[in-house]
């Protein structure tokens, strides 16, 4: 019994090759937000890539950059891959007023020296106009000072807390800390008796899951443990048993892992008959097509996934454009929250660049324009996105809960605010949203 989704082309070719070679041996093996569209039908409200004019951009390229973590157990290249797909679509549709976008993505393996060097390379050697779509375990803490010194206003899909607590970085997502908090809020509403959380043993991993304990405490629910697990996980069954034993009957378990790692634990829990022992929740990475395809019916309605972004099959114009671009330009990247993050980041910068006069297409001009972004509406987020002249940025601070139902996610809870806690800045941020009119609050 197995399940699937996502990329087909390379696997298909590989499978065909293997089928061919094995056939002789066994008979069994014979076996943002404007109008237009990239492909297929378009409606008056449909979103489009850039100018949407169907003409290839041929002018001098505008260079953007990103830094992304790709290492065993942690691979965020689906985010930058989707941003690249979006820019490819833009370049096939008139580019930025005729100029194509060149997107330089640097992979890193959580080596601070490497990450510092890559940021310097992008800014000084590649002379990028902006850094957009970076998703790294250590880029924000390592490079935020550099970005501040060089006047770069960076748009990321954030992971460590420094992506949400420094003046020159703003994320399209809310990151594992706030998302885990949202998952814990869901479990509180589900009436759990205790709370347990497990996350990846990566830099900042302990902080990422600390909000769960704080939410439990704020709601007078006993916290029964916060576990950091080495990734890739090699003993998922043991972890599943450990978590359910710690939580006890009627307890709640919050997971904060990438899709492949979290899925291992859930499937192990199913094999061990532990699905109904506790209530399960997962931060945003769980909102992934390959995950929900792999989860059996035993999980129907029994896993609350905190979705920082809309359902991957939602029918808003931006999400439909996201689906089309994925199909046409990035078929190997599964539909999921990671892809949506890359899409939103690329959408924001594309509209920002399109709104600038040619003489402002410089690092100074572009980064000044980024800081002025406010009320950027997209149906993929709960609230309009903004950058703003703030000391800390958490523009995405409301989200949904989705649950699996017969291999698709359905919405369980509509948009709700992530709870303010001591030290998570949300009280201050929401006051500034109102006073500065950043997102229509």
């Amino acid at each position, binding site marked *: *019994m*197995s*399940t*699937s989704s*996502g*990329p*087909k082309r*390379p*696997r*298909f*070719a*590989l*499978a065909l090759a*293997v*089928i061919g*070679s*094995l056939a002789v*041996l*066994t008979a*069994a*093996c014979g*076996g943002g937000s404007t109008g237009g569209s990239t492909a297929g039908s378009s409606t008056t409200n449909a979103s489009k890539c850039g100018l949407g004019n169907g003409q290839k951009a041929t002018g001098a390229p505008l260079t953007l950059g990103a830094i992304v973590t790709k290492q065993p*157990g942690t691979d965020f*290249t*689906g985010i930058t891959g989707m941003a690249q797909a979006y820019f490819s679509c833009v370049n096939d549709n008139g580019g930025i007023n005729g100029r194509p976008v060149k997107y330089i993505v640097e992979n890193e393996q959580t080596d601070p020296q490497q990450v510092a060097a890559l940021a310097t390379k992008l800014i000084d050697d590649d002379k990028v106009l902006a850094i957009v779509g970076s998703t790294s375990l250590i880029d924000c803490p390592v490079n935020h000072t550099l970005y501040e010194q060089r006047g770069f206003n960076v748009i990321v899909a954030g992971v460590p807390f420094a992506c949400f607590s420094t003046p020159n970085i703003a994320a399209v997502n809310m990151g594992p800390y706030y998302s885990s908090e949202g998952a814990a809020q869901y479990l509180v509403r589900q009436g759990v008796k205790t709370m347990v959380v497990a996350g990846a*043993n990566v830099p900042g991993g302990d902080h990422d899951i600390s909000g769960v304990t704080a939410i439990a405490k704020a709601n007078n629910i006993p916290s029964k443990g916060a*576990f*950091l*697990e*080495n990734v*890739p*996980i*090699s*003993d*998922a*069954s*043991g*972890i599943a*048993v*450990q978590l359910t*034993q710690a939580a006890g009957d009627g307890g709640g378990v919050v997971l904060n892992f*990438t*899709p*492949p*790692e*979290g*899925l*291992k634990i859930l*499937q*192990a829990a199913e*094999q*061990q*008959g*532990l699905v109904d022992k506790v209530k399960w929740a997962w931060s945003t990475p769980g909102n*992934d097509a*390959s995950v929900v395809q*792999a989860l059996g019916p035993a999980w129907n309605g029994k896993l609350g996934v905190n979705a920082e972004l809309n359902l991957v099959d939602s029918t808003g114009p931006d999400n439909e454009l996201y689906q089309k671009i994925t199909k046409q330009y990035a078929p*190997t*990247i*599964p539909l999921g929250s990671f892809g949506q993050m890359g899409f939103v980041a690329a959408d924001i910068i594309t509209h920002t660049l399109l709104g600038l006069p040619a003489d402002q297409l410089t690092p100074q001009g572009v980064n000044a324009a980024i800081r002025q972004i406010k009320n950027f509406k997209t149906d993929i987020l709960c609230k309009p996105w903004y950058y703003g002249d703030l000391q800390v940025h958490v523009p995405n601070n409301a989200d949904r809960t989705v649950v699996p139902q017969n291999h698709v996610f359905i919405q369980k809870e509509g948009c709700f605010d992530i709870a303010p806690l001591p030290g998570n800045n949300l009280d201050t941020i929401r006051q500034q949203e109102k006073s500065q009119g950043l997102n229509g609050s």
Partner: protein
Amino acid sequence: MPDLRPFLVLGLALGGVFALSGVGLVVLYRATGVLNLAYGAVGALGALIAWSLINDLGLPDWGAYLCAVAFGGIVTLVYGILFGPPLAARDPLIKAVATLGFTLILLGTMSWAYSYQAHSLILPTTEWGFDLGEVRVNGTQILGLGLGLVVTGAAAAFLRYTKIGVAMRSLANHREITATLGVPVRRVEAAAWLGSGVLSGATGLLLSTLVGLDIVGLTFLVIASLSAALIGRLESLVATMAAGLAIGLVQACLTPFTSVGPYRTMTPFLFAIVALLWFGFGRGRLSTA
């Protein structure tokens, strides 16, 4: 004191698969002198291919599983035929490093073809099971342990009682003398490569259910099997099996202890280090005497 019963079940199942892998490594080493570091990667790619055959081509599950096992056997055999003879006279370390290169090729192929998304391959045996008190025991866990024990016994009997098995053992002692006695060296070595590869394919399928279908995780789970094989001195199948079971058990049972649980993945390394020190100490005493 945490309830260790579920961890005992999990540990025995995982240990059984470690033992199965270790036996595959030892049989190959005894016949060819090659420590095959690509063992895990071959199993991982076989399991991923089974996943593709089921999901992309709609092949029946059992057909796909057979293909995964056959893939393990064939790809390992091809490697052995191509690289075994040229490297036969080289140092064992060089032979092992060559398989490391093969591992990296397989790892790159898997990363290219399967990207970072979540995959899932659950053997149908998992659906069958029974409750032992509050512990759920499923068919794949029993299969993992049972296959480990059966293969160990079968391999030991094969090496002791069959003509080709005896030839493999004599090859391990002295390749050139064995050849001069008329033993078809290349054919015997090919049989060892094929057998080891088939076991790697089966191991990959079992581990994809017991551990998860994960490229890096499955590739490097070979480390636990290597530790078991080292404890068996790359010679004793029974010691390898016992070590595999012990590693699985200890690693699983450390899980609920918060003070040492986070370090449980070091278990195979600790076993290997202790074993090497013990062997070294024993050799020192002998030489002193």
